[in-house]
């Protein structure tokens, strides 16, 4: 990086810059060490994923004996078996339903609140914002699950996934702040002009402002979706007495206790692949967005 800069300097100045210690050979050695380190870390990061993929294609017996990394013969039937026998069709449907509903709900609730907070003054605005900010930090762990559960029982929502969905939507404060940032980028003149033209508040929001917010909604939605797709403890608690409602995370983790768990490792790996793949695919497609937004969240 500095070579580039130095080369721009006049020739006389170049002499005054001391060379890095070690000279040419030292620099090559340093680069080699650095690349070895980078590749080793990358490999260690990918190793479990590779294991899952190859494991999902092995036979049960092959998994039992350890053996080599790659399967002797690809067992694509594992996926069909996991899908049907280990009930992954059901789990996938539950996960997808829950995550889609949570994403829609979170975006709706958070965007409406963020719009009003960004555009209007009202009594208690500061209190509202402070409470939302503190909701991101307060955590007493599993303890809140019980009163939440009791509330859902009172509302008769404990026998469906709607209880879990409502609870996940209630944790919308980070989406709220993210969307508030996006609203700031939309000029106020736009909604004012629309309202002068006779469009009501609600209509302006849904017809004019929300469509403009699409990129922001996409990013926030991606995060909300990832969060609910990966959620484990909440659906676990809610489906303890209702195995039909289990999501992928819960169903997969429960496979460990199966009567013949040891024989099913290959199915577990196939199931793990089934639950990881959608997120991984979304990640690869939206890699840049993920990385930029996550990186941006530390500022300010």
């Amino acid at each position, binding site marked *: 990086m500095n070579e580039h*800069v130095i080369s721009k300097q006049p020739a006389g100045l170049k002499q005054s810059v001391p060379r890095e210690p070690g000279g040419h050979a030292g620099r090559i050695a340093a680069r080699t060490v650095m690349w070895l380190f980078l590749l080793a870390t990358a490999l260690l990061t990918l190793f479990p994923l590779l294991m899952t993929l190859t494991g999902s294609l092995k036979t049960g017996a092959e998994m039992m004996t350890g053996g080599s990394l790659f399967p002797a013969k690809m067992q694509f039937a594992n996926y069909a078996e996991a899908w049907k026998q280990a009930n992954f069709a059901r789990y996938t449907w539950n996960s997808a339903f829950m995550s889609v509903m949570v994403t829609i709900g979170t975006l709706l*609730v958070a965007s409406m609140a963020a719009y009003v907070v960004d555009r209007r003054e009202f009594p208690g605005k500061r209190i509202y914002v402070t409470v939302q900010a503190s*909701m991101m930090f307060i*955590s007493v762990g599993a*303890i809140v699950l019980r009163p939440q559960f009791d509330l859902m029982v009172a509302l008769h929502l404990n026998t469906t996934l709607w209880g879990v969905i409502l609870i996940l939507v209630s944790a919308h404060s980070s989406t709220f702040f993210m969307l508030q940032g996006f609203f700031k980028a939309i000029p106020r003149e736009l909604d004012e002009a629309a309202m002068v033209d006779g469009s009501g*508040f609600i209509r302006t929001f849904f017809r004019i402002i929300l469509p403009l917010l699409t990129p922001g909604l996409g990013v926030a939605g991606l995060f909300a979706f990832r969060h609910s797709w990966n959620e484990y403890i909440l659906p676990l608690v809610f489906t303890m007495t209702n195995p039909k409602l289990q999501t992928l995370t819960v169903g*997969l983790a429960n496979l460990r206790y199966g009567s013949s768990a040891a024989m099913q490792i290959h199915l577990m790996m196939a199931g793990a692949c089934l639950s990881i793949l959608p997120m991984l695919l979304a990640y690869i497609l939206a890699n840049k967005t993920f*990385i930029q937004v*996550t990186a941006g*969240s530390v500022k300010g």
Partner: protein
Amino acid sequence: MIYKWRRLGENSLFLAPSIILTLTLGIYPLFWMLRYMFYDYAGYGEALFIGLDNFSRLLRDGLFWESVRNTFVFAGGKLLLTLPLSLLLAVILNGKLRGVSLLRGIYFMPTVISTAVISVVFYNIFNSYNGMVNTVLMKLHLVSAPVDWLGPKHAMLTVIIVAVWGAVGNYMLLFLAGLQSIPQDLYESAAIDGANAGRRFWNITLPMLAPVAQMVIMLAIIASLKGYESIMVITEGGPIGKTEVMYLYLYKLLFPVSTGSPVAQQLGYGSAVGFASAVIVGAVTGLYFFFSRKMNKVY
């Protein structure tokens, strides 16, 4: 006047869903806990007011303090490995290298995968008899007999490794964001003044990164003191309580059925444990914030 009321109505309508959800599912549970920590309440039947008895029980509860100790070992081990590693990766990837974005993508990948699912995978990878880790280590002749990774001796190390795997990419990215906000000309003028790479790192990068690092480290501390999901899946706190952490202990008091734990459900005592755990996390964060406040001032 009508206009004013209408505005108020619109505001309320748009805020109502958020406020109702936050009040009922976010704030009410906190008051619920604050109330029941003074009660003897099993979760069914009658709740009996017992004043501070839950807290005196807490002080004498060896299992709880053991879990607090484990929490600090776990969080300490995780942070000690994660933070330097992610900072090092961030510093390297901040330079102009071939394949930078691919590497960033790979390192960040674990954070998009469910902790529970990947813990199931690690559970199988670290299996002592047919796990891939032992197979690889034996083939490389690094060990002569399979290591019992999930046994009492190594279980803590195993859950720390899994936690580090899942966290490095995230903190690398946050550090990287901080590094990229450091103005490049600082480095250029330092290079002209004859500062070598080490000096530039020590005198420019570290102080300029300090405010961001302060935030990132705080997030990391909170997250590692609170994390129990992956431990729950991999070891369930076992063997013989060697990986029992604070929040997992709390979870077992509240939902003993799901973990097959022999403890009876105790919501009253659980509330006290939850409160104490939150206070411990808060105290550590506060202490960290106090001692790191100098990091906030760059100039």
